[in-house]
């Protein structure tokens, strides 16, 4: 267990498609994700490739976030796969690996995710966070999901200063 350094784009590892996680990796990488996420005050989610681990593990915890209307508490998901998605909403996102930018991204509002330990249902802000983290496992960053730099992408002044975006 350890707090690890967050990779910043253009590190190539952030653009790789990650491999399925095996049980020992799931445990060790999952613990590092939780520790690292907990060490960053504004962080609601993190994905293994952001630590340089190219395996399919993400951690999400929106229980303390004011935007979250519902929460499953701390989620550590191995080999997550979205099996149902409905609804559609634009919301502001940030990313720990692109620290200077935030963007408006359209995401599903209700999802069902299968993972190694079962199935989880997420809504609203929690669904957005889980989808953002699962994107990381396929090398997809929010810049791959925006349509307009003028309308949808914003320079972040500094972490903590802007109330809207959440660092992930």
């Amino acid at each position, binding site marked *: 267990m350890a707090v690890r350094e967050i990779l910043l784009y*253009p590190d190539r590892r952030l653009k790789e498609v990650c491999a399925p996680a095996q049980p020992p990796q799931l445990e060790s990488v999952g613990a590092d994700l939780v520790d690292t996420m907990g060490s960053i005050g504004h962080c609601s989610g993190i994905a293994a490739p952001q630590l340089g681990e190219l395996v399919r593990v993400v951690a999400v915890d929106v229980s303390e976030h004011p935007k979250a209307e519902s929460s499953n508490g701390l989620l550590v998901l191995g080999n997550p796969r979205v099996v149902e998605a409905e609804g559609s909403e634009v919301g502001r996102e940030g990313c720990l690996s692109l620290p200077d930018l935030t963007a408006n991204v359209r*995401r599903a509002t209700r999802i069902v995710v299968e993972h190694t330990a079962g199935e989880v249902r997420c809504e609203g802000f929690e669904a957005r966070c889980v989808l953002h983290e699962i994107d990381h496992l396929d090398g997809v960053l929010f*810049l791959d999901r925006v349509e307009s*730099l003028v309308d949808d*992408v914003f320079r972040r002044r500094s972490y903590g200063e802007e109330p809207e975006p959440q660092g992930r």
Partner: protein
Amino acid sequence: MSGGPTYYAVSAIGRDRPGIVAAISRVLLDVDGNIEDSQMSILRGHFAVMLIVAVPESKRSELQSGLEAVRAELGLEAMAVNEVEQLDRGEEPTHVLSVYGADHPGIVHTVSEALADRGANITDVQTKLSGAGESPVYVMLIEIAVSGEVEQLREALAAVGEEAGLDVSLRELGAEAL
């Protein structure tokens, strides 16, 4: 001769300050002009204006002298007025292309040349330099009208991205990606 208006392309750029749009639009109003399409935005502290305006033929010299007076008064760096042919709106974009990567010279040219070679018409380009200090990240979003084979274009762009160290993704515009 018909009594219809004459169309002009007006472009101007100057150090940003309050009142640039107000001064230009005052002149256009005074010559009974109509702003048909426009784009105006701040680029690195300079305010850039591009307009297509319809103005009665009889007001041609007033339009030119009025805008020249604005340029002098506000100390704008450039002001150009050119008569243009009246055209339709042009092609509608079908796809949006995200391009980003470590900043280096030639990103815009490399990608736009690949698009031009395959007959894809650019309808809008926006770029931003992001990230501080030693590793600036260049981000570009291009809207394009694709009439030919999208998959061939996608493959060509992937190859260009690989060669130039850029991350490139092409999506259908307006398509939901859930």
